[in-house]
């Protein structure tokens, strides 16, 4: 009897000691994550296995892997949009990195007007994608932009329209997005540049390292993790870029600037084919997941040298 009372008291003590507070604190966050992230993602996976087109309800129902076999084997637009997405991501991220790093190195130096120079370099990052598009649309517009300049300078009749050709549209969109994206790298890399220990440069100079060697073995070496992380983030963002391309080129002309997310948007907003759109979204998700994992592994992100 005494033993039983002792056990009960111990159990009660354990129960009293169980700390509910962390769970209650985390509870609302977990609920919100489930409601606004886990549930929508699960819904996309669910619909990717369905025929679901609001305009053709007679076809709605379980599709199995039908949507996936269609996109893999019968949908040339999936492959062409994926190819353009790859070109877009590689072109944008590599140019933004190179030019952003160059600007970061410049504004890291000490010179008069550095504050103003930094403000000018970083300003485009504060501008939304749609507003960026409006600015560049005015520049590319034959009446208000380059065409007008061409006419004023007497170089032509003002009929210059950079967005009218497939190559022109790609280059024009590339430049507009570079203008917005370069500051992202410049800001991140400048922050990391300021933490490079000066002793390393001094030691390199003692070892007679030239400017290139100091840049290669001290600066770049120090920036490696920042570069890997920022390029990965930017690659994912550029992959998912819809605002600028949608408003600047609409994916044209002739689908030449249609990325995979733009194609998905078309399937949802014009065709109302949500089942197939969900399958395309799952494909994009898997591609990004595989790319991210592979990229971090190949670059040995976070590993000590």
């Amino acid at each position, binding site marked *: 009897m005494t033993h039983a009372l002792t056990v009960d008291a111990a159990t009660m003590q354990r129960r009293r000691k169980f700390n509910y507070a962390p769970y209650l604190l985390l509870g609302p966050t977990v609920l919100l994550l489930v409601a606004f992230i886990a549930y929508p993602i699960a819904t996309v996976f669910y619909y990717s296995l369905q025929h679901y087109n*609001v305009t053709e309800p007679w076809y709605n129902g379980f599709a199995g892997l039908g949507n996936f076999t269609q996109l893999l084997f019968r949908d040339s637009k999936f492959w062409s949009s994926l190819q353009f997405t790859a070109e877009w991501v590689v072109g944008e991220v590599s140019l933004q990195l190179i030019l952003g790093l160059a600007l970061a190195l410049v504004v890291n130096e000490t010179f008069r007007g550095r504050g103003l120079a930094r403000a000018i370099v970083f300003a485009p990052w504060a501008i939304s994608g749609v507003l960026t598009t409006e600015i560049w649309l005015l520049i590319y517009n034959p009446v208000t932009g380059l065409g007008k300049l061409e006419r004023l300078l007497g170089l032509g009749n003002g009929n210059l329209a950079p967005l009218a050709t497939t190559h022109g549209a790609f280059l024009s969109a590339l430049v507009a997005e570079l203008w917005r994206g370069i500051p992202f790298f410049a800001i991140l890399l400048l922050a990391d540049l300021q933490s490079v220990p000066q002793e390393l440069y001094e030691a390199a100079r003692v070892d007679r390292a030239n400017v290139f060697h100091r840049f290669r073995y001290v600066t770049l070496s120090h920036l490696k993790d920042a570069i890997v992380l920022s390029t990965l983030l930017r690659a994912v963002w550029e992959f998912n870029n819809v605002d600028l391309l949608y408003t600047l080129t609409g994916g044209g*002309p002739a689908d030449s600037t249609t990325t995979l997310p733009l194609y998905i948007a078309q399937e949802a907003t014009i065709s*109302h084919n949500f089942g197939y759109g969900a399958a395309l979204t799952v494909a994009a998700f898997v591609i990004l997941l595989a790319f991210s994992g592979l990229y971090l592994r190949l670059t040995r992100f976070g590993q000590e040298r």
Partner: protein
Amino acid sequence: MAGAQGRGWWTTRRRGITGVTAIGAVLLGLVAGCSSGTASGSGSAAGSGGKVAITFWDDNGGVRTPAWQKIISDFEKQNPNITVNYVGVGSSSIEQKYNTAIAGGSPPDVGMVSSQYLASLVAQKALVPLDSMYSSSPLNGKIDQAMLKSARTDAPDGKLYLMPLTTTFDTLYYRTDWFKKAGLSAPTTWADFFKDAKTLTNSGANQFGFTLRGGAGGTLQLLDALLYYTAPKSFFDGSGQAVIGSSQAASFVQQMADLYRNGETPQADINNGYQQMVSEFDQGEAAMMQHNLGSYSNHVKALGTSKFAGISMPIGPSGTPVQVFPGDNGPAIFAKSAHQAAAWKFVEFADSATENSYWNQQAQQVPANTDAQSQSWVKQNAAMENTLQRLDAPNTIVIEDPHYLPEFGTIMDVDMAPLWQKVLNGSMTAQAFVTKWAAEFTTAQQNYKSHNGG
């Protein structure tokens, strides 16, 4: 002492738990508040005293907002127990907004709907048939028969879901001053049109014979132009094949593409949507433009009434005049509405002669109410008068695009729009283009018939 510490610990913990619970309650309250807000968004009873609030979605918010606000104000004066909550939605996103609202279970009570996506809303069982309400209404017999027929044709089951309020017809706008200066008369045939476009082009002076819509909405204009040129009696022949794949159709598409490729339209036109195209015409860069009556007031603002005119679309080689019926635009009542009687009262009011005339005068479009059609302002708009005369002519072929096909939007905007740009930039032949276009429509028609009979 230990007991005191324990009580302190418990008190602290209790306060912590209370705090967490309070935060949780606030968050849940927020979420609950959001959801209840959504539920009431479809227009529930407004307050007490038997007053009813209905939600009305305008499909051209901004442009048509002042006209609707005046009509709503008049309506609320006559019907003090009904409040109309106006929501202006942009024309480019209205279909998407309707689909989202239907999926979320909170569509408006009544909304402006176009023929172009009527079939999609009917397929979702989102709308209420209006046949019985119309037949017992004072409006019965006062609505244009052609518009009523079109509204019924565009629904898969042939019922009346969209109450016609207005329509607008294709119009060829041209610069009268340029034509006069060049000694040309109005282009009434396609042969004249192509010849005049060439004559009036002076690319060195940044002046072009035509402004072409190669971007958003371009295939719809091209399809209509093709029908005016080829003058078929119906869109599908007796065997169910779409008639737009002929060599004559290909020849027309090639001639339109040649306008672009020969520099008789601005180079930027391959991406032109509505705004860019209208802006080119209004800024004096183009001698001709194909659009509808809806842009008439824009041209008056930019050019005045003396420098341009609007006429019916040119006549093709057969010499037979054609009028493509563009479908209707008008209010529809949503099945989820808890106040369908109040919503119908509003529809009736908007379609009454006075209000219908007012709305269409503001928009410079064709009223659905036949009493409104006889108002003097209709006769003052030469472009509209010209089109109405063609509609009344005995030898005119009246034809309508197959808006009722669920794939209509996909065929026009997703599949064919990029290919039209390929024809313009020379990477696809006109014949391959029209053949594919016809094949897609033929397949869509077969699918439609297999599921809807007929």
